[in-house]
């Protein structure tokens, strides 16, 4: 099986280049397995991974131009396997990109806004069941960046103008969070919610299969509408 991989060492190379490798295929072979095999047996290849199960997000990259998680994406025994870094982020080395422009923003959104610390009685009290059912799937966002790298709106207008699906998940999680006291609807609008075209690409590529991005977007828009925060033309 042939696998080609983009390599680039910014301290040495003028530009990224592709290298092709012959890989011994086995059933259900993942992109990550192919990369480890090449790195172990052929030549150094720089990539990162940790959990092997779509929760840490560290192996986000692209296969045949499509952003994916290498740990849970299969290679094709007889087809094209072109592995490149996660699109839209600066390359550190080979398949490693710097995602902090996304992950740092998400981390700061995720910090709960509250006037006073939670007490145990609040934690133990029942919550609205519908709210729980909306939050629970969002907890599984790995912040891998596959959705954001695949988002056509982010590609066109940049994360400055639309934070991208992973950022919206963070805003939505704290919007639903009954313990959070911040104004997350303003935050959603500030972060470009209305630039999202609701095309559904994020739902197609996300491996946290329980997440339904579209219904989150609908809820956030409805709340913004109610607050009078929808743009005039929307």
């Amino acid at each position: 099986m042939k696998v080609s991989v983009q390599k680039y060492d910014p301290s040495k190379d003028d530009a990224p280049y592709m290298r092709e490798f012959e890989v011994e295929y086995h059933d259900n072979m993942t992109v990550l397995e192919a990369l480890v095999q090449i790195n172990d047996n052929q030549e150094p290849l720089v990539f990162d991974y940790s959990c092997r199960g779509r929760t840490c997000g560290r192996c986000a990259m692209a296969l045949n131009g499509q952003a994916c998680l290498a740990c849970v994406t299969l290679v094709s025994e007889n087809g094209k396997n072109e592995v490149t870094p996660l699109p839209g982020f600066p390359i550190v080395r080979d398949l490693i990109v710097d995602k902090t422009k996304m992950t740092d923003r998400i981390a700061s959104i995720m910090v709960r806004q509250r006037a006073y610390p939670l007490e145990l009685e609040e934690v133990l009290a029942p919550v609205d069941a519908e709210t729980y059912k909306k939050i629970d799937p969002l907890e599984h966002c790995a912040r891998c960046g596959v959705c954001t790298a695949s988002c056509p709106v982010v590609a066109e207008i940049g994360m400055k103008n639309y934070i991208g699906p992973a950022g919206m998940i963070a805003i939505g999680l704290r919007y639903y969070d009954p313990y959070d006291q911040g104004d997350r609807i303003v935050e959603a609008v500030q972060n470009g919610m209305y630039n999202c075209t609701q095309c559904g690409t994020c739902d197609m590529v996300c491996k946290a299969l329980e997440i339904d991005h579209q219904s989150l977007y609908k809820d956030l828009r409805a709340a913004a509408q109610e607050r009078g925060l929808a743009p005039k033309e929307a």
Partner: protein
Amino acid sequence: MDGSKQGSAGKNGLSRRAFLEGGALTASVMALGAGLAGMAGCSNGASSSSGTTKEGTPSAEVGAGGSATGTPYEVYETDICIIGGGLAGIQAAMEAFDQGKNVIIVEKGPHGFGGVAGYNWDQFINFTRDDLPWDESGDFVLNELTNKKIAKATYEGWNHEQRNLLLNNSRLDNDLYQRDPETGEIQPLFDLPTLYGIYRGFPRHMLDKLGATGLKILDHTLASDVVVQDGTCTGVMGIHIPTGTFRVIRAKSTVCCTGASCWMYGWNTVAPMSINSPDNTGDIDAAAFRHGCALEGSEFFQNDLINIEPKGIAASFVSGIGADSGCCEYICDAEGNYFFKGMDYTTLNKITFTQAIAKCISEGHGTENGGVYVDFSTPEAFASIGETYIRNIELWKDVFGIDVEGIKLECGLEAYEHGGNPVVDETLMVEGLPGLFHARGGGYCGSQGGSSVNVAARNGAYATKKAIEYAEGVSLPPLDNDVVMAEYGRVYGLFDRSGGKRPQEIRRAIQMACYDACQPDRETSRMQAGIDELARIRKEDMPSMTLGDDSRVYNTDWKCAIENYNLLDIAEASAKAALFREETRGHMFRSEFPEQDDENWLCNVIEYYNDGDITCEKKAVVELDS
């Protein structure tokens, strides 16, 4: 970092002259020359700031020692250095933050994504609902080999409210925990006076909260050694992986919060037979070991049963399908015998679960890949799949086209924790190395060890409390440049090798040999072969280990090579201790010694390192009155 050009000497001209003046250089490093010129950001300490480090906290003074000597490394100073931003490290950092201390956190991975805490996983948390004395609590493992002084001190280090992780983690921004989807009522798995346990504790929320404290986090930084001056630990040294810059973090006290070293436990295609992270290579345990500190508990691992196929997600907790003692009725051997049936289930715990499976495999009834089957062919069996694995059922269908319902799934025993750790006193200070404290969820001499999330948390906070008390009584000595340059020479000297095996090849050999000696079905000749192989690797492979990559920028060959020294030392200590303990106890079954032998082995085993020679000794269990 922004991917900009790396590689020219820094503003100060990396000053090869200054480097050579550093002294304590080996000949091999002096020959490095070219390598040095390639080192990025050889500043005199002004942190070569990159987008991946958190800058600008008032807590950390930067650049003291380096600027005085013009040496080619960064120097940071602080009160408390915490190594590892995981389950223990988060609480360690929050304790120091609460006390207003200056803190630097050193993290090998990207902050928020490192180690097992960096998996965004559905974590089970547990604590004691009622305020019980330490020896009546069901929230941790207390058994015949546990160090009772440590168990008592760390349990009592937090009060009842602090031990309540439901509250503690909620205050660190964790969300709702598991609820009844119809009523919204909180839904613990256990709600007993001695034990409360519940799912949905996602640790990444706590890492976000930690980031928001403004404490200085040096991530992507591989700690390769502790700084030891006059027999005292005064910080840590290592490599900033994206740039290859050498970093020295000076601290009055240092708290090691790294996870265990399970990355040594075998190899499938992308991971060992362990749910742990590639970050778990025992770096600081090994550093302390080489500085003369003893290790203990290394012969013990803790196991769970989990899928072997598909290979790419073998032993992955967060995508795999596993079985615990709740599924034992559905576990069968290669011939279809359901060997748990008829067992007295009152004796069933994690240890007897592992021992029964290891015995089955030892007696020749294991599957082709050395496992057993979990038979999900009945609805009852399928319904017994644990909470953690349920979301993976759809993933298997989506990615691999495998429907777990109705199949016999081949599973093996993965090591979710290693029992080994440096010997510590009841303040969690490493014996023989004042200034270095140690906190982890597993270990501390139990034959079941860990790991448990709540123990990691309270040990992290407790060790830091003690580290702060210690720091208040000491002042940092001037930086001994010879100490720094010796370690600098060791790690940069790795570029000056040729003709040997690449670190990845040696890594696989270490992992396979370690597995032969340490997996639960322990048979003496196979264990001895593993030990012999580790000795051969040490003698033949390591001295000529050769990097396939000469770049200073994110060089994973280099990282692998540095870690290999740590993995090899811990693997050999563990393998020798495993062979030394001639009985069956904990998560293993020794066919030649099938019984627990309290007469001879009601003791801990400790290991010493002496210039590459590792020896084992018995050590009495620490009781309250000892």
